[in-house]
């Protein structure tokens, strides 16, 4: 498996798309920090951009990468290598490249301008977010053989978690506004990795007061040690569950 990871990372480095994205993200982070004197404000702008762009790019990149490596995977399947080693090698290769990319592109500017707990949480949740969308992309890619359909489904999944899901929550809040829904919303948020990352970062930013009662409930929950453990666990599940399913499906896939 290690050898496969090595070839995947080597391949991704050579294809330069991820390299370009890393530079782009770093450039954006640096310019946001330089435009403002107050780094915590820059951090908020950075967060809103990162929460949209990182899931989108990691998901689409991974899907396209997987379909483009189909020949490589086919070749490996006819060799004395287990299917599990093949799919996990591919996965760790892609996920590892993303961890590296985000650590560099966000890690360096954040370390220079905002080296505190908030910055660290932003960095860690961005990494977790990219890896969980890599997992989702693997699940989508093993489900269908058709590349364009796979990319389409990936886009829909991203759009669902970025836009539709929040609208649904807002709708529920609106219709049931007479009921105390804070805890229900809290539960619903954990079914969306992007919401999870957003809440985690906001809680560390001390602007939860702006969010009214809901913010207070969140603060009480996520500010506690239990809340931190809970959210870390949920993020881990968002990484693990899709890739476990992807691996199970791949094991019985006809190539």
């Amino acid at each position: 498996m290690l050898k496969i990871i090595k070839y995947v990372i080597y391949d991704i480095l050579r294809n330069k798309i991820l390299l370009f994205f890393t530079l782009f993200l770093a450039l954006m982070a640096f310019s946001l920090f330089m435009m403002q004197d107050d780094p915590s404000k820059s951090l908020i702008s950075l967060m809103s951009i990162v929460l949209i762009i990182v899931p989108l790019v990691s998901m689409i990149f991974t899907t396209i990468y997987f379909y483009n490596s189909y020949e490589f995977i086919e070749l490996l399947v006819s060799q004395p290598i287990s299917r599990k080693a093949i799919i996990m090698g591919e996965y760790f290769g892609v996920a590892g490249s993303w961890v590296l990319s985000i650590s560099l592109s966000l890690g360096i500017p954040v370390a220079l301008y905002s080296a505190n707990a908030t910055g660290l949480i932003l960095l860690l949740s961005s990494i977790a977010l990219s890896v969980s969308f890599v997992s989702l992309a693997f699940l989508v890619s093993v489900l269908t053989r058709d590349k364009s359909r796979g990319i389409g489904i990936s886009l829909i999944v991203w759009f669902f978690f970025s836009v539709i899901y929040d609208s649904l929550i807002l709708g529920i809040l609106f219709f049931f506004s007479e009921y105390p829904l804070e805890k229900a919303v809290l539960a619903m948020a954990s079914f969306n990795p992007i919401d999870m990352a957003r809440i985690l970062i906001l809680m560390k930013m001390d602007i939860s007061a702006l969010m009214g009662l809901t913010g207070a409930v969140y603060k009480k929950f996520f500010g506690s040690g239990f809340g931190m453990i809970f959210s870390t666990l949920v993020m881990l599940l968002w990484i693990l569950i899709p890739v476990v399913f992807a691996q199970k499906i791949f094991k019985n896939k006809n190539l």
Partner: protein
Amino acid sequence: MIRIEHLSKRFGNLEVLKDIHTSFGGGKIVTIIGHNGSGKTTLIKCILGMVIPDSGNIYYNDSSILTGHHYRSEIGYMPQIGHYPDNMKVGQIFEMLKDLRHNGRILDEELLEAYELKSIFNKPLRTLSGGTTQKVSAAIAYLFDPAVLILDEPTAGLDPLASEILKAKTLKARNAGKLILITSHLLSEVEELSDNIVYLYDGMINFHSTIEELKERTGEKSLSKAIARIMKGGNLA
């Protein structure tokens, strides 16, 4: 060496393989013939573990191939159309496979040298012609000196000289006790190479016999006529 028991596979509504039951032993060249879509490639892919059968089992030296992958270190596979990673160079693909599967045995680089592939080691695989890609595939199949060789329409894209080299190599491998499974539409080639013939018809094995038996049973002198007679007349029985 390879034993197939009641193997069935369907893709959606299409039953591609129906209750295939046969076995192949070492030191033989077995040719699988049949119409387009008769299930030849699916059968091969089942043996390779690329397609998972719905029911039935395949054994390599008496252990089921469905539960492990180590048996594949004894198989060399030459696909009908070789698909290789686009941005890799010819040399890199050989280096990578050696890195991934080298088992300490002496590498068989005869085809590599006969096809002079080392001179194109710096060419990216996507720029190769169909025939050259086939040469690369053939060299890869033989490289690790496996006990079983599976060649899916090996000579379809090769020039006459290259086919002759491959045929000679295949006969040599047979004489060294290896099992060679070939699919082919070229009957002259089938007659030249095979010891046994398997005729797949509609996903079922119509017959599995030696060339002599086949000629005897149909009463024809040439293999092509014997096969033509069977393809027209359906069953041998």
